[in-house]
């Protein structure tokens, strides 16, 4: 039972398509990582799935439903969350308000989910009344992930979560991703930091020029000499 499947995705921003037929299949307990060179269309895959970029050809199936070109506000209630690479927190709002905005679509009592987010990111508990814009880069990333988890997603899409962080925070982000996954959330993320990300990936995809190049477990890809030579810097 596949949680998210895309086949033959062709998508772009109006001009020539960025994606020229990308396939992917991710199981509910996976950490799937998309790697590849700059400009290969890695982030566009996530945006096409989440309805932020128009899909011209191909289709996306989430949890048995065809969601091709569905808008984000219909996908969030279905159990999908997206953490953008940049500008992924509400800087003028408190940490707690950021989390509340993640639960905006929920009409039930979300205090338990909030408690579990604070459990996962204990640093945030003491900063809950502070404006998110005043936090450090690593803490901002925690707020961003926490916000996305508040809707209780089955699938968490993350666009380069370690980008722009210092090595210590970067390491923390990968630990957080594993913790989120252990809590039963499928993670599909794009990473520039390919070798480190593939090390925790149960599924890895290499994308270049808008097409699939290699697919396998994270470890397979790290050990594949071709992948290592062309995409992991030797």
């Amino acid at each position, binding site marked *: 039972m596949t949680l998210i499947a895309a086949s033959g995705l062709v998508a772009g921003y109006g001009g020539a398509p960025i994606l020229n037929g990308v396939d992917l299949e991710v199981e509910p307990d996976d950490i799937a990582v998309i790697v590849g060179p700059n400009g290969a269309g890695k982030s566009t895959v996530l945006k096409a799935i989440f309805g932020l970029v128009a899909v011209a050809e191909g289709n996306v199936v989430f949890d048995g439903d065809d969601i091709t070109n569905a808008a984000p506000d219909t996908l969030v209630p279905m159990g999908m969350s997206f953490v953008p690479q940049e500008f992924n927190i509400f800087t003028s*709002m408190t940490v707690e308000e950021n989390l509340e905005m993640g639960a905006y679509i929920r009409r039930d009592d979300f205090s338990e989910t909030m408690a579990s987010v604070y459990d996962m990111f204990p640093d945030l508990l003491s900063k809950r009344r502070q404006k998110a814009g005043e936090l450090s880069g690593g803490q901002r990333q925690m707020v961003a992930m926490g916000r996305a988890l508040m*809707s209780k997603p089955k699938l968490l899409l993350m666009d380069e979560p370690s980008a722009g962080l210092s090595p210590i925070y970067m390491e923390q982000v990968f630990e957080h991703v594993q913790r989120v996954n252990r809590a039963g959330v499928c993670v599909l993320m794009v990473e520039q930091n390919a070798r480190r990300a593939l090390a925790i990936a149960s599924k890895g995809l290499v994308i270049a020029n808008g097409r699939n190049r290699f697919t396998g477990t994270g470890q397979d890809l790290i050990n594949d000499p071709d992948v290592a030579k062309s995409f992991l810097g030797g």
Partner: protein
Amino acid sequence: MNELVFFINKVLVSGSVLGSVYALGAVGVTLIFGILRFAHFAHGDMMTMGAFVSFLLAAAFAAIGIQTPLPTGFIVLPFALPIAAALALSIDRGFYKPLRDRGVRPVTLLIASIGVTLMIQGLIRLFFGVSNRSFFENEAKEIFRIAVIGAKRSISFSEPQVLLIITTVVAVTALHLFLTRSRLGKGMRAMADNADLARVSGINTGEVVRATWIIAGSLACLAGTMLALDVSLKPDLAFNIVLPIFAAAIVGGLGHPYGAIAGGFLVGFAETLAVFNWSSVLRPFKDVLPDGWTLPSNLSLVPTDYKLTVAFVILVIVLLFRPTGIFKGAST
């Protein structure tokens, strides 16, 4: 004591009244800017339109013989506000939303709002003519006077002025609670902060936009009606003050509701202080002046005709020191 009373009447009372009107208008301008990212130039005329809605309702109330202890123009507000909100929503639906759906740039929306300005003013002139009207043709405007010991004059203010200041406090408090406590209010702040992330979070942005017009339209009607009760009702009632209102919103930091309130009162008081005739307050000192010095009869900083420039002097001074407005300096 006479001088103090004169100062209170001319500066404290007038400044609070003007500041309240500016604050209510600037909050609407700033909310619309925060959510839709364009300067809504027609906001002044939305105030005027709201005042005319109240005027019609007050006339209807008078025609069926309803008499109240408070001014009828004030009593009709619970009915006028929803009508004004509906008008604001339909203006958005008819003029701005089609443009937004085509993804136009903010400057196009600004020009469209100038068109809406001319249209509203034209319609008002067409139906009501160009004359000044008063809410108090058939009822008396009550004036309160507080006698001050040792002064010939008394502190005086009218009933509409008191009501204006009270309703401003109530409206601002209600808005504050809405923005900080309610789900929709927080969603509104989230969208003003980061519209893309709000959409990604599943916030229904169309709903937030409608809420914005409802609030901005109601506050505009409130401000316009109270202003018309205080002075008089005419087709260019609030068009004349749309520039100081924008100055107030920018001084406070565009998109920042509390800044707009502070900016409104700052500009309001600055204007009243600038046109205040200081010689009347300095009169007691005329005997101690050195020989040959006389007190001019008019000692105001700016002649009344140039009152409008004061708002912009304040604007330039504030932006020189805090380029993003009073309230935004620290964060983001």
